[in-house]
């Protein structure tokens, strides 16, 4: 049986892919969220700061404007355990910069280019995420 969430996932996914296509065909760049932010944080992308800021501003504002369209309350359902949140944020920040990409850059843009780096990165972050669920949810029960 096909669930409604899966159809919305597919529709949203097509929009994400279209966004990456606009960035690639328009500006000639790979749409990677961690790279767009990271280039501002470590100043390696300061020469293209304006388009990075424009991308990030629209990334915040457009979903905010869409919230009234939802009949139920939209929530991230993030864990209230701030120690876990801080640890997760640090790992995501360090990891995406070391690997030069995250789910958008390596996953969406890399796999569609049949890039070995993108495919290998995706395999490792999926495996690591799955192992974390086993350890921290099923064995330790902290998330």
């Amino acid at each position, binding site marked *: 049986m096909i669930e409604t969430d899966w159809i919305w996932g597919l529709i949203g996914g097509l929009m994400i892919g279209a966004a990456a296509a606009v960035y690639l065909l328009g500006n000639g760049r790979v749409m990677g969220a961690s790279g767009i932010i990271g280039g501002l944080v470590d100043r390696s992308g300061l020469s293209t700061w304006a388009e990075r800021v424009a991308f990030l501003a629209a990334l915040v504002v457009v979903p905010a404007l869409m919230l009234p369209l939802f009949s139920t309350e939209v929530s991230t359902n*993030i864990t209230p355990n701030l120690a876990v949140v801080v640890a997760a944020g640090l790992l995501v920040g360090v990891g995406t910069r070391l690997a030069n990409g995250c789910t958008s850059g390596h996953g969406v843009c890399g796999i569609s280019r049949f890039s070995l780096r993108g495919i290998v990165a995706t395999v490792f972050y999926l495996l690591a995420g799955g192992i974390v669920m086993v350890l921290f949810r099923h064995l330790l029960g902290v998330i």
Partner: protein
Amino acid sequence: MQRIVIAAVSGGLFGAGLLVSGMTDTNKVQGWLDVFGAWDPTLAFVLGGAIMPMLLAWHLTTKRAASLVGEPFPAKPDPKLGHNLVIGSVLFGAGWGLAGLCPGPAIASLSWGGTGGITFILAMIGGMVIAQPVRAQIDRLAAA
């Protein structure tokens, strides 16, 4: 100016897609990673859907000389994998699993993510700041 408008259109569409797909909900992301729990396959539909327009886009880059603004298309990256790609992806995946957030959805949900969302983004920026010394240390150990 054209570059900025294109970037804003892309960022806005990305954010809308993340919200519509459910990827700003940490339960859906952790549900996908939790193979031994109540497994939620939604993320596969999202990734599959996102790859389709990009297959076409990468194909179009072979037919055109340059992007709309005249910037050349990105060269295929060095196929060499390297230890940082693997170590970084493992660290990223661990953090992704712990909170159910990756960089795009974390930013997209800034307006409704509350204290937890802002804390995640600040910690992520902190992680990006320390990434350079961490990389230098790893490279030193790898060379030894």
